[in-house]
Structure formats: C-alpha cells, structure tokens
C-alpha cells in the first residue's frame, strides 16, 4: 500500500472507525515509514484538537426570545421608508399598471411643495440685514458651472459683493 493510500486512511479515521483490516494495514505501514508515522501523529493531534475545541461542544438551546427578536429585525427591515409609505398609500388613486411610478412622482411633488412652503415661511422670519442671496442661480452658474456669460458674471460679482458686505 502506498503512502498516499495510508494517508487517505488516516484522514478517514478522523471521521469513521477503520475496519480491522484497514487498521492492520496502517499499523504495518507506519512501523516502517517515518513519514507516515509522523502523519499519523499529526492526524491524531488534529482530531483531538477539533474534538476538544469545536466538535465536542454541545450547543445550548436557543434563547426563548430568538424567534421574537428575529421577527422584530425582519419587520424593521421590511418596513418601507417614509417616502415609500406615502407613495404606497397614494397608489390607490391611480388604478392602472404604472400607478406606483405615478404615485411616487405625485408624492415627490407633494414633498417638494411642502419643502417650498417651509422654506418660504422660514425666509419670512429672516431678520433684516441678514445675508441673503436674491438670485442664487447667477452665483451657481458662474462659480459652479463656470458660465462665461458677461451679464451673469457681473450679476454674480455684485451678489458676492453684497454678501461679503453683510458678512463683514
């Protein structure tokens, strides 16, 4: 029997008891082969290590709240975000296939409208003299979009000057 066959049997012995014939073959071989004798020693140590540290571990029962905790996590994960929930509710208004998309767009409009309303109400409370941008698009067009239009550049410069004046 070759060393390869013996090592296969040694490995098998970790999982199942060998037959009497197989044991005899291994014993006969390792008496005359130093390499397989070493492999046998390593394999026994390996089996012992795993039985002691992992395999032999008896797992306790799951804690009683395991199922409840799991369903709580599942519910939390499946809950749609606020915007999704609004779109879901509005979808009943559109009784045709693309209703989810339309409801989503409608919900987006509603949210935007609410945002503008809040912005306007807050703007009214801005104290006099506080820095404000009358036409932010000019500043953005020049500073961000690098617009070279002379009129836009002039407007942006004037606005920037006003802003600096208010800040400083």
């Amino acid at each position, binding site marked *: 029997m070759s060393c390869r066959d013996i090592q296969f049997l040694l490995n*098998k012995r970790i999982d199942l008891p060998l037959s009497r014939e197989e044991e005899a073959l291994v014993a006969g071989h390792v008496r005359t082969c130093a390499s397989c004798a070493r492999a046998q020693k390593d*394999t026994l140590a*390996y089996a012992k290590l795993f039985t002691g540290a*992992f*395999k032999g*571990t008896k*797992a306790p029962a*799951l804690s009683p709240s395991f199922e409840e905790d*799991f369903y709580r*996590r599942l519910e939390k994960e499946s809950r749609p975000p606020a915007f999704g929930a609004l779109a879901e509710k509005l979808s009943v208004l559109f009784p045709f296939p693309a209703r989810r998309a339309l409801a989503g767009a409608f919900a987006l409009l509603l949210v935007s409208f609410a945002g503008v309303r809040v912005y306007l109400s807050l703007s009214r409370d801005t104290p006099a003299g506080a820095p404000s941008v009358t036409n932010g698009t000019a500043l953005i067009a020049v500073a961000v979009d690098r617009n070279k239009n002379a009129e836009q550049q002039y407007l942006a410069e004037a606005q920037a000057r006003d802003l600096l004046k208010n800040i400083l």
Partner: protein
Amino acid sequence: MDDEKKPPFEQVFRRHRQRVFELAYRTFGVVSDAEDIAQEAFLRAYRAYGAFRQEAEVYSWLYRITVNLCREKIRKTAAARKHMPVVMSVDQPVTDDEGNAAPREIADTRETAAPHLLENEEVRDMVRKAIESLPAKYSEIIMLRDIGDLPFEEIAAITGLSVNALGVRLLRARNMLKEKLKNKNIL
C-alpha cells in the same frame, strides 16, 4: 420546484433555526454571537427566498449562508484586532491627581464563553484564523465537517460534491490546515 410547493419561510425558519445556530455556536462558542449570526443568516435567506428555486435543499443553502457569515465574522474580528491599539496594562495601578496609586478596576462586560471553552479560546481563535486563511472551498469544508460536525451526505449536498470527491477535498483541506497549525505551534 415551483413556488406553490415551496414551504412557507416561517416553516423553514422553525425547522432549521436550532441547527443553524449550532453551527455558529460551535464556531464561536458564544451564544449572543451565534444567535446574531443565525438571525442574520435567516434575514439573508428571507431576502432571497422569493428567488430560491429549490434546486438545492433549503438546509444546504442555509448552511452555506451561515458558513459565509461565520467566515466574514472571523475576518472582521481578525481585522479589528489588528487595528486595536494596546493602551494599557490591567496590572498597572491608576494614579489620582495627588499621585496616590490604587488598583485599576475594570468592569468585564463581555459575555463569557462556556467554561470548558474558555481555556481553549486562544487556541480556538488561532484555529479559526488559520481556517479562514485557507482558500474558500477548503475552509468551507473544514467548517462544515470539523466544526459543524455535519455528516458527509449533508456536506456533499451542500457543496454539490460526490462523497468520494468530498473525501479527497477534505484530505487536502486538512493537510493544508495541519501545515498552518504546525507553523503556529498548535499541532
């Protein structure tokens, strides 16, 4: 198998939760970690259950998810330890503003592993890291057989290998792992 024949997810959860937990518990030896992994495994399974066509058995699929999660956790723990600064010695006394020394008191908030596991914890940690450093197809097989103690037939179903091919792969995986453990003076 079509969706009508597929068991409801609740049934899958109830049937396999203890075994999924056991695999994670054998790997980490701490109930809270194992429960967390088991829950995450079922969450991942739930997300994909609609697309699951049962070409494989449900438990095979669940174990594969669990093994991957265990490997992820081993990787993350190893990475976190690598970056953890060593700040102080627990034996070093604390000194107050006036220079008086007093013994340092540290609350141990860790969940304790079962006592029989505790003495092995350092070794277990090194073994887990050595397993994780193997190529995925070998570490998976070691985790299922040598940690999870699953029978050959189940591992063959999980991995899609024949029992003979599984034996060959297991032999290779164990030989590679033995070398790594010898290098760390564990074997």
